[in-house]
C-alpha cells in the first residue's frame, strides 16, 4: 500500500523533474519534450497500473495549477490547447507500456524498448493525432503528417527507455516493479 503510493508519487515527481530539460517548440504548439520519456519509464519501470496512476497524478497536479509541464507551463489552460490529445493519451500510453513489459518474456531492455514504442508512440500518437485534428481543425491525415515531426525524437526516447530500464534491472533487480 505505502510502497505503491510512494512509487507513484516519486515517479510523478520524476516526470516533473524531466520537465526541467529544455523543450523544443514546434509550430503546431505541441513541444518536443523529455517528459514523454518519463511517461515511457513510468510504464516500463513501475508496470501498467502504477505507471498509469503516476501519470494521472502528474496530470492532476498540472491541472490544479502547478507549472510542471516543460517550460513551466500548467493550469487548466493546457487542457484547452493543442497538447490535450497527447495529455489524455499519457496515462494510457504508460499503461500499455507497462502491460507489455509485464507480459512478455523478452530480455528487459528489449521488452522495455518495444513497450515504449507500442505504448509511448503507437497508442500515444493515436490520442495525440486525434487531439491535433480536433484542436487545429485538421483532417486526421493532416494531423498525422504534423505528428511525424515528433517521431525521430520519440523513437530515440523509446531506445533510451530500454537502456535505462535495463540499467535498473542490473543495478537494482528488486526495484524493477514491472518485472518483480
Amino acid at each position, binding site marked *: *500500500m*505505502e*510502497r505503491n*503510493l*510512494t*512509487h*507513484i*508519487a*516519486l*515517479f*510523478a*515527481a*520524476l516526470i*516533473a*523533474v524531466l520537465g*526541467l530539460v529544455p523543450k523544443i*517548440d*514546434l*509550430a*503546431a*504548439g505541441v*513541444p518536443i519534450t523529455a517528459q514523454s*520519456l518519463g511517461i515511457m*519509464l513510468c510504464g516500463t*519501470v513501475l508496470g501498467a497500473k502504477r505507471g498509469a496512476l503516476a501519470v494521472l*497524478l*502528474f496530470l*492532476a*497536479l498540472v*491541472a*490544479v*495549477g*502547478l*507549472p*510542471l509541464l516543460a*517550460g513551466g*507551463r*500548467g*493550469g*487548466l*489552460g*493546457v*487542457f*484547452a*490547447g*493543442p497538447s490535450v490529445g497527447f495529455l489524455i493519451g499519457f496515462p494510457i500510453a504508460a499503461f500499455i507500456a507497462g502491460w507489455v513489459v509485464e507480459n512478455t518474456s523478452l530480455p528487459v531492455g528489449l521488452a522495455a524498448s518495444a513497450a515504449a514504442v507500442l505504448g509511448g508512440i503507437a497508442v500515444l500518437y493515436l490520442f495525440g493525432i486525434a487531439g491535433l485534428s480536433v*484542436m*487545429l*481543425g485538421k483532417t486526421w491525415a493532416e494531423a498525422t503528417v504534423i505528428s511525424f515531426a515528433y517521431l525521430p525524437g520519440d523513437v530515440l526516447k523509446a531506445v*533510451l527507455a530500454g*537502456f*535505462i530500464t535495463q*540499467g*535498473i534491472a542490473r*543495478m*537494482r533487480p528488486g*526495484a524493477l516493479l514491472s518485472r518483480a
Partner: protein
Amino acid sequence: MLTLTSPVETVFHRVAAGPKLAALCAATVVLFWMDRLLPLSLALAAALALTAMGGGVFLRHALRMLRPLIPFVGVVALWHLVTDDVARGGVILLRMAAAVMLANLVTMTTRLSDMIDVLTRLARPLRPVLDPATLALAIALTIRFIPTLSDRVGQIGLAWRARSPHRPGWRILTPATLAALDDAEQVAEALRARGGAGR
C-alpha cells in the same frame, strides 16, 4: 512551491473554486459548439475583459501565459491563408485563445489548496477504489519531493562532470530513475512508521 496562482488579488479570488470550475466547463463546451467568427470574437473579447478586471499587472501576466501559443497561431494562420480558408483559421484561433484564457483565469485566481480540495471532492465517488485522503497524501508527497528529487539529479550531474569533460546527457537518467526508486522505498517506510496510508 511555485504555483501559477497570481499574487494579484482579483474579485475572482473570492469566488469558490467549485463554481468557477463548473462555469469554466460550461464555457468551454459552448466555445467548442460555436463555429462562427463574430460570436467567437465576442467570446474572446469577454475573456479578455474578465481578465482585465484584475488590473494591468494581472492582465500582462495572463497574456504572458498565452505566449506558448504564438507559433501555433503562426502556423494556423499560414495554413489557412494558403488553403484560402481564412474564416476557418480565425474560428480555430479565436476559440482556442478564448478557451485557454478562461482556463488560465481560473488557475490564476484559485489557491492551490482550494484546487486540491475540489479534486479530492470530485474523487469522492471513487472512494471504493481511491480514498480521497490517499489522493491528497499522494499530491502532497509529489509536491514535497519534486525539489528534493531535482536536487538529487543535480548532484548526480555534478558527480558526472567531476569525472568527465562531456555533459552527461541521457546517461544521467539511469541513476536519476534509481534515485526516485530508492527514495520511494524509504519514504514508504517513513510513512508506515507514522501509521501508514489510508484508513
